[in-house]
């Protein structure tokens, strides 16, 4: 009995000492990127997987170079969205690079594909533009830059899967109206300018209807040659 009491007392003492140690570190936030990017999570999800808001994109697994370009563009006002411009305005570039690396390294599963309310004709038009483009109107196939599996290419070209139709059409619209711009030559601005409203709706609907491929990782740099120059993907 006495021995058990001693043992218990020692255990309690140990526990108290352990508590003290935890309290020491518990006085500071975790020294991790996850804790530092908590400001991003209400809109983009804990691992950058996206949230129920259809206008906020998935960040996880996108090429780090692409994410860094977007963070810089928001910081400098080249890409306009006041809540993002405000958050990033006074953060150093190397820190933005670390944020980009962090979300590029996250690999939560792609969300299940939501049922599309687009008609068969619209989806067919979207499929045709995504896979073949429209040479007569100088519209390249999406896959010619974003990869045959539409998973993007390191360092600067994002994948197009796991995004919702509203987000895709909002971004294509932003390029057409100049609220989203990228380094010259601004290839996406050139392509988006050739699209009609119907094209945008169709492309967004088709892309959002695609199931996740086996590998969602972007292709390594230089896997294929781009059809034209793009400021976001230097040679």
């Amino acid at each position, binding site marked *: 009995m006495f021995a058990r009491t001693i043992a218990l007392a020692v255990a309690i003492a140990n526990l108290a000492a352990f508590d003290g140690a935890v309290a020491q570190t518990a006085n500071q936030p975790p020294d991790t990127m996850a804790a530092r990017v*908590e400001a991003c999570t*209400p809109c983009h999800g804990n691992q950058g997987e996206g949230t129920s808001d259809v206008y906020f994109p998935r960040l996880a697994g996108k090429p780090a170079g692409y994410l860094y370009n977007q963070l810089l563009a928001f910081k400098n006002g080249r890409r306009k969205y006041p809540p993002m411009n*405000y958050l990033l305005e006074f953060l150093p570039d190397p820190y933005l690079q670390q944020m980009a690396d962090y979300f590029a390294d996250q690999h939560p599963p792609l969300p299940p594909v939501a049922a599309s309310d687009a008609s068969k004709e619209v989806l067919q038009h979207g499929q045709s533009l995504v896979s073949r483009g429209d040479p007569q109107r100088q519209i390249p196939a999406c896959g010619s830059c974003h990869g045959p599996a539409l998973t993007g290419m390191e360092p600067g070209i994002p994948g197009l899967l796991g995004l919702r139709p509203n987000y895709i059409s909002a971004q294509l619209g932003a390029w057409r109206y100049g609220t989203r711009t990228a380094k010259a030559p601004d290839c996406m601005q050139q392509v988006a300018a050739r699209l009609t409203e119907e094209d945008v709706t169709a492309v967004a609907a088709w892309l959002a209807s695609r199931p996740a491929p086996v590998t969602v990782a972007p292709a390594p740099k230089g896997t294929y040659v781009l059809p034209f120059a793009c400021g976001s993907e230097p040679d």
Partner: protein
Amino acid sequence: MRSCSPILAVWLLLFAGSSAEAQRKPDPDGDSVVARGEYLARAGDCIACHTAPEGRTFSGGRAMPTPFGTLYSSNITPDRDTGIGKWTAEDFYKAMHYGRFPDGGLMYPAMPFASYTKVTRADTEAIFAYLKSIPPVNQRNREHDLRFPYSNRQLILGWRTLYFSEGEFKPDPTKSAEWNRGAYLVEGLGHCGMCHSPINALGGTSQSDAFKGGLIPMQNWYAPSLTSNREAGLGDWSIKDITDLLQTGVSMRGVVYGPMAEVVHNSLQYLNDDDTRAMAVYLKGIAEPSPSPPASSTLPTSESSLLISLGKTVYDKHCASCHGTQGEGKPPHWPPLANNQSIEMQSAVNPIRMVLNGGYPPGTNGNPMPYGMPPFAGLLSDNEIAAVVSYIRTAWGNRGAPVSAREANELRSAPLN
């Protein structure tokens, strides 16, 4: 490579130009004057207005919305056609000290000459020497876009009569050298009074209201009083907490956010330890404990208590994981909310905006990877925002007043940048 060579050629030309310049004017003290001028230009935060986003440094063109229309800052690089390349040191002094262009024309008081007038001639000349040493940028100034009648520069005369008193800083012999150095920096180059003093409908600040706090026009952030310990008065802060806040953007008492993040990012983080300490000593010195008015609220008591009880639920769910169940935070990175003047002060604008918009303190040399606060505008209703802000303003001994859902709603449309 083909596209590189013209750039290389330009570089070589620039290089050749500057070394020829150096040979013409051997000046053993020149470098140190220029370096001092660069330091002082940082203290004056010239870059914040005179550089546009992604623009060349000091080439101007930054849009500055004011209640009277939009002003565009000017090119202060030494370009002879579009900058200040033809100005003399005397011209520059006249601009800083009197707010006049070389031809005698009047500057709009967005240029803080009412503060810069306190800067010594030697310091003004050092800043000029520095500005003359930077690469010239050929970029024409953009016309201001002011509404009638503010487009009439003669109106500035009236403003100057009311609010401008010219004169270099006069040290107070009853105070220490350190206090006076701090006063010189805060009242002069730091131009802190531009935001931290109430601004009236004419865009002016009366002397008697200096540093008493006010809502910053167009930005809808409240610049708290620097003299009242009920607001941002630093009377009961330790000198270390003040210098930490100014130099790194975070401290054990709170962090900087909103427009003050810009000031720390572009200016204060570059000041040396002595100057930062001098500012801290002065700021601590001017703070006066003001009698705390009883927390007053326009809300009926029953509504307040409902709000506060909903507020605790919201707080425990969304806020307590970082700010602690007792509002103790994990300073300096996760600021405490208990006994935090920024939360308790009369104006609830800043706490409401922080909940709505979140924010990062500035990245600084002392804190290059700051922790950020998530924006809750999309997650919480007006009622929940009002509730949680009411809760943090009244819990743990805090002496603020509850806020209404209408106040929260109105700030949803406040400009973000």
